[in-house]
């Protein structure tokens, strides 16, 4: 049995009287894609915010590898290898795709008080950056200025930048947000490449994508976990059907 890379135990978070996270526990096994789904308002983004360290939890425990990261601030969690992407894309529009990823690589390779050698010719930056771009299928768009990339391509670029920091685990907050069917399909292809190599916690609304990618799924309703299991188990779970009645969920 594989070791969980991320272990969450009894997480609570409330805003005023509203319970956003209600006694949540989950484990993400190394090398798997674990998806979080649930109707709107289920507290999915709040959960990611707590896991990445932007928001503090009221109680509970988060373990990453063998470290207790419950009280660690976000940049320290990033340094430990827990990388996240955001719902709203935030790349460097004036730089090319390659330069964007090279920056992410550069951030991990010591200080940048180097004043003389051209960075754009630096193989130690180009190599890993191109690798990351290949994974997300943007290798042939490497020299395009980010401003001229499509929305979907920019989302892919975000993932490339997260990958370039050589993370131990990725937290992806709605990577398919704002995408049409074609772009979503491409994103699913990209993410399926990560299966087995990366550990991913994925929050998504797009059910097709979730069922295509996830090894395990947790269903969140009003901040509480109502079911966890393989895609087949979730699909046939009566509790889950009840929760989603009338929503994107139709009998499959």
């Amino acid at each position, binding site marked *: 049995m594989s070791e969980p890379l991320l272990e969450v135990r009894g997480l609570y978070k409330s805003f005023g009287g509203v319970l956003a996270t209600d006694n949540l526990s989950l484990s993400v096994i190394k090398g798997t894609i674990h998806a979080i789904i649930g109707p709107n308002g289920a507290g999915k983004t709040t959960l990611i915010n707590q896991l990445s360290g932007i928001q503090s939890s009221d109680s509970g425990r988060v373990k990453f590898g063998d470290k207790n990261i419950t009280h660690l601030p976000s*940049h320290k969690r*990033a*340094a430990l290898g827990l990388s996240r992407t955001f719902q709203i894309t*935030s*790349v*460097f*529009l*004036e*730089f*090319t795709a390659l*330069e964007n990823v*090279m*920056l*992410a690589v*550069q*951030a*991990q390779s010591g200080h*940048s*008080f*180097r*004043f*003389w*050698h*051209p*960075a*754009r010719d*630096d193989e130690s930056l180009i190599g890993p950056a191109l690798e990351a771009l290949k994974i997300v299928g943007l290798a042939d768009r490497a*020299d395009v*200025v980010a401003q001229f990339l499509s929305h979907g391509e920019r989302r892919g670029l975000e993932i490339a*930048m997260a990958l370039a*920091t050589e993370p131990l685990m990725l937290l992806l907050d709605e990577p398919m947000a704002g995408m049409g069917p074609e772009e979503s399909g491409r994103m699913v292809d990209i993410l399926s490449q990560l299966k087995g190599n990366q550990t991913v916690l994925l929050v998504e609304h797009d059910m097709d994508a979730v069922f295509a990618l996830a090894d395990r799924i947790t269903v969140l309703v009003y901040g509480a976990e109502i079911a966890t299991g393989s895609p087949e188990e979730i699909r046939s779970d009566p509790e889950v059907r009840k929760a989603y009645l009338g929503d994107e969920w139709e009998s499959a």
Partner: protein
Amino acid sequence: MESRAQKLILLGFFGGLFCVPLLAEWTSTPFYLDLARRMMILAIGALSLNLIMGYGGLISFGHAAYIGIGAYTVGICAEHGLTNGFIQWPLAILISGAFAIVFGAISLRTRGVYFIMITLALAQMMYFLGVSLDRYGGDDGLPLSERSNFQDLIDISNNITLYYLVFLALVLCLLFCHRLIHSRFGMVLQGARSNEKRMQGLGFPTLRYQLTAFVIAGMMAGFAGALLANHTDFINPDLMHWTRSGDLIIMVLLGGMGSLAGPVIGALVFLLLEEVLSGITEYWQLIFGPFLILVVLFARGGLLGFFSKRGNQGE
């Protein structure tokens, strides 16, 4: 990457600059020598400002202060009998750098409108300081008792020799800026201009890079100040007045902020405009003011921008 057209313009430009002293001799108009030399010195100042403003995104309205500090260092040294250029000039650079660290540390705690105002206020403070120093001329200024002495290496009391030294200095500064912008350091600086929060999210402590850039720019401006003191043989607080900082910003804008050598062209255009317009009318700023407004409204990317290829901008 700078386009072909830009490179050709620059080459022609420097070729022309190189020949100016010869032309001036030939036509017996030393005035042009003077004008071109002044332009080159201000171009160094504008180049240094472009580092932090064009590439760093930090709009400093107090950059002229560092030129003044460099000039005053040379002037005050000479006043006390220290005319050795090998000591004066490095001292000018170091002292401007020291002020830049302090002013930068204060100003970089803020951004946006605050940053502009604080850099403006700090520079104006230096102006008032200069005015209040009666020992060194105060409002009337300080004549340079003797030009910087480099012993047998070079004699800059000769105007033409000084001209070529300034020419060399400009070329070296241009090369230095070029390497700096394309280096890892330059990438961080530009990334921070593009999206500061994202840079921090990637793990870059952006403040220390910006402060470093601020200090480098200050030192280069101090160097320009040392040259300026020798050029005019006179130092006065007006060098540090905030309108001089405004002039530098205008030069960077006119030349186009997206390019490395733009400020050089900008300095030329600015000084030429000043000369030509003041020849037409005493009230030349009546024309220059609106001209500036029009450039801002309609000529995005400055004059050099007109000549560069649009599309793959990233420089």
